[in-house]
């Protein structure tokens, strides 16, 4: 397994599937969303990217997929290398063709299209012949989706939509799957299923996954490596076991009282806030 | 000296639709004015002063006509106005013209509202629009054997169309023939199938078309499609070469009254030769009856200026124009006189008829006063 080396050392050792170096992203030329964010994703791993709201996680994914420009975002520095080549300047559909697909935050379905049409669009970059097989795979993963296949997706419940969104991304059989908060709005049972599925994708199909999650416990339970972002940069990285034993992670991401390995009740949350060490 | 007059030059102005579809008319009008000016200047100008004119575009929108005329009067400081655009546009400009007391010749779109009430500095060339409706209908009754015919009219749903309708109705009444259909249509209409069908339904034998170029052609194509063979009369715009060419395939020999000679008339042909000599290719290509109109309008104004001698003022020009009587335009029109209470030169009208085979126009009568 990986050693907790520094990123540069690690990349010297073995070329990662995706390497992000000193990425700097601005929105509107005014809001700095990422400053010098660096990390990498090894092939065949699930890498978790954690961080509080506004840390820039979604921005990282948008940069990889090349869809910053519709929001007036711009990469002003750094690089994104995928399998040794730079993704800079590639159109989003070319990036998808190279095997990188994203499940965007907040589902973003084609809400006027039916569930099935949504899935078809997910498989847009694949030959028509393979579509039916891919559909079947998605339906086995989410039987619920099959049941609703001819409904207009905009009328599904939040959770049902999330399943469609994930299924849609899987339709293209990506080699690198970018998941932006897949557990958002899902019931615990489904979350467990999805994470099981993610694990299977890695184990059985050797799919690489970059997982942005708020649910740290869960994410780290399936991940091979984790990064924690705050305010546009990576502040901590390591294998799950290392992260899980970090005091700050315990307190802020797992909700455990200082020093205790037990989750504290939310009724006991203090009104003052402790500062995170990695920021000071 | 008055505004717009220097020792060497007199500045004139004209508002015309120079852009958009109506520019077919505006550009021709301006070309006529240019031609008159070129001709006068070639002969040394008026009492040593050359003429120069500025043409403003109003895009055929009345509100823009007002801005344009203000620009001519206030910024360009023209001495007089030689030309004008459509009827409602002219009416829109009248208050400004009246306030500026600027000599103005109206030679296109002779709308009765321009001279009643009388504006002291405004002179109109041309009979009222309703004669365009009256004359062909009378001719149909008197010469084309439609005494017991059933008459119909298609007219544009605006004041121009209404004036034609009035003339048509007057003729119908005067000759005691029956009018079975009076059908309005909106300006810009392209498809006349419903209108023509109802004309057919009413069994018309003679029809007056208050339509402009392409509309006339479309209506006649419908007549042909439905196998109708009515006698057709239209207004002066019907002798625009474009109109004649477009209507020719339908094979109708329709009547056109006009107070100006045209491209097909000896006087008009002579003017065209002059135009070829003085105008550039673009302007020459625009030649049609509105060119004659612009030419006559400018010549008449020039005559007013000429009669003032070396001391040119607006007051003097207006005074001279008021006295203008039987001014000869060399066969382009009948004699022009403003010495009447309305200051309107009610010109005699000539009837033409199209020859669809050659896509030309021949004259039926001479200029006749009605």
């Amino acid at each position: 397994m990986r050693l907790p080396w520094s990123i540069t050392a690690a990349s010297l050792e073995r070329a990662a599937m995706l390497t992000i170096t000193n990425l700097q992203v601005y929105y509107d030329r005014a809001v700095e969303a990422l400053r010098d964010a660096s990390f990498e994703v090894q092939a065949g791993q699930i890498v978790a990217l954690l961080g509080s709201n506004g840390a820039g996680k979604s921005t990282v994914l948008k940069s990889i997929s090349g869809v910053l420009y519709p929001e007036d975002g711009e990469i002003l520095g750094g690089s994104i290398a995928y399998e040794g080549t730079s993704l800079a300047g590639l159109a989003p559909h070319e990036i998808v063709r190279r095997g990188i697909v994203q499940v965007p935050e907040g589902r973003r379905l084609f809400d006027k299209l039916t569930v099935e049409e949504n899935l078809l669009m997910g498989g847009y970059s694949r030959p028509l012949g393979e579509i039916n097989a891919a559909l079947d795979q998605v339906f086995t993963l989410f039987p619920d989706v099959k049941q609703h296949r001819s409904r207009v997706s905009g009328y599904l419940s939040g959770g049902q939509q999330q399943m469609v969104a994930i299924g849609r991304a899987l339709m293209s059989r990506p080699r690198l799957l970018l998941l932006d908060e897949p557990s958002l709005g899902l019931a615990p049972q489904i979350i467990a299923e999805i994470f099981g599925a993610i694990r299977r994708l890695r184990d059985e199909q050797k799919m690489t996954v970059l997982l942005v999650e708020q649910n740290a416990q869960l994410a780290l339970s399936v991940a091979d490596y984790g990064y924690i972002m705050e305010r546009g940069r990576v502040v901590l990285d390591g294998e799950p076991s290392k992260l899980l034993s970090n005091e700050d992670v315990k307190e802020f991401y797992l909700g455990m009282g200082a020093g205790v390995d037990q989750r504290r009740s939310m009724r006991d949350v203090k009104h003052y806030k402790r500062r995170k060490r990695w920021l000071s | 000296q008055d505004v717009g007059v220097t020792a060497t030059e007199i500045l004139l102005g004209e508002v015309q639709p120079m852009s958009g579809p109506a520019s077919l008319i505006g550009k021709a009008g301006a070309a006529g004015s240019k031609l008159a000016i070129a001709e006068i200047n070639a002969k040394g100008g008026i009492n040593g002063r050359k003429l120069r004119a500025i043409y403003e575009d109003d895009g055929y929108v009345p509100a823009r006509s007002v801005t344009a005329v203000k620009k001519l009067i206030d910024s360009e400081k023209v001495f007089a106005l030689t030309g004008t655009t459509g009827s409602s546009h002219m009416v829109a400009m009248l208050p400004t013209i009246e306030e500026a007391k600027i000599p103005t010749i109206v030679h296109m779109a002779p709308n009765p509202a321009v001279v009643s009430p009388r504006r002291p500095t405004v002179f109109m060339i041309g009979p009222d629009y309703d004669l365009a409706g009256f004359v062909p209908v009378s001719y149909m009754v008197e010469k084309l054997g439609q005494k017991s015919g059933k008459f119909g009219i298609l007219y544009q749903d605006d004041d121009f169309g209404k004036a034609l309708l009035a003339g048509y109705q007057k003729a119908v009444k005067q000759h005691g023939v029956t009018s079975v259909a009076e059908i309005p249509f909106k300006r810009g209409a392209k498809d006349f199938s419903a209108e023509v069908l109802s004309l057919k339904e009413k069994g018309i034998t003679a029809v007056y078309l208050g339509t402009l170029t392409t509309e006339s052609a479309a209506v006649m194509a419908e007549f042909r499609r439905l196998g109708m063979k009515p006698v057709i009369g239209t207004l002066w715009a019907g002798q625009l070469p474009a109109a004649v060419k477009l209507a020719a395939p339908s094979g109708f020999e329709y009547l056109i009254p006009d107070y100006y000679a045209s491209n097909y008339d000896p006087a008009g042909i002579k003017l065209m030769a002059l135009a070829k000599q003085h105008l550039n290719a673009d302007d020459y290509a625009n030649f049609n009856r509105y060119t004659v109109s612009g030419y006559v309008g400018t010549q008449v104004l020039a005559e007013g200026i000429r009669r003032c001698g070396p001391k040119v003022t607006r007051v003097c020009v207006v005074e001279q124009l008021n006295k203008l009587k039987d001014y000869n335009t060399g066969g382009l029109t009948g004699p022009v006189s403003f010495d009447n209470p309305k200051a309107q030169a009610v010109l005699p009208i000539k009837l033409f008829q199209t020859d669809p085979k050659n896509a030309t126009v021949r004259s039926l009568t001479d200029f006749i006063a009605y």
Partner: protein
Amino acid sequence: MRTRSYKTSYSDLVALSQYQSTWIWAIAGLMVLAFAPVVLGSHGLSILSVIFVMGIGILGLNLLTGVTGLISLAHAGFLLIGAYAQAILTTDYHFPVWLAVFASGLVAAIASLVVGVPSLRLKGLYLAITTLAFTFIVRHVVLFAEGLTRGSEGMAVEPLVLMGYAVKSDVSFFYVALAMVVLFVLLTLNIMRSRIGRAWLAVRDHDIAARAMGISLMRYKLLAFMVCAFYTGVAGALVALQTRYINVDTFSILVSIEALAMVIVGGLGRVHGALLGTALILVLPELLSFGFSLAGDRFTTLLSDRIYEIKGLLYGVVILAFLRLEPEGLAGIWRKVKRFWVHWPLSQ
């Protein structure tokens, strides 16, 4: 470098402007405009007056389309109603002319309910087409109701009389137009900082959430239509007073499209954008003419009668280039310039 002034009370927070300097600039601008008649000829003044008058209507359209998000092609219809109301009220009913201006606004506002009601059910372009239909139908009615409107003949309009003085000259009309536009700008700014402006924005951004905020869609959409129509009706009345003759041709459907263009070029939803947009679209042809006249007579004769099409072409090209460079409209440019200025000397 300018800093945001320090607020010491809540009343500062609801003030018309966040900066003192805005007031100074605004007053300075007005002073300059007040002296325009000294420099500009009557043509220049009437162009400015047209900008002010149309600007009032565009402010209204901006409230409807930019702020409330209801696309309207009824602009020409409202202008037409305002103009005819002005003409009819003064000629046939002998209203005092200045009162008729506002009464015309009210007439248009009431008429706007006719399009306002469909707007409750229709969205986006489906609404646009009904408003388009409104314009056509109004034109038809004006032509049809000859007894009231003189049909296609058009109507002459009595000049404005203020304190016994007839506003006939371009200079006096200029001041009237200026005063009116200032008045309407202030009214608009006030509406925008009140709950009504916020409610309209809410309806535009998320109508369901707006309902959950207690905003009645029916009420606020109708209100938006009425306010827009009031502004536009007043503008129409002023157009009538300026040209002193009206007929339906002045208010063709192209006027509606041009009005939308003004709002968009200005930057949707911005008050200053609406005015800048109006100015740009109206001044552009003048600038082009001016440019050509600078090029000299020889050049223009060379182009002969093609010059008008070339002008049209350039007009379109300027608009295209402008949108390409600044898709957010003039308000976007304004914002960028301001940001540069505010951050100076730190701005890159």
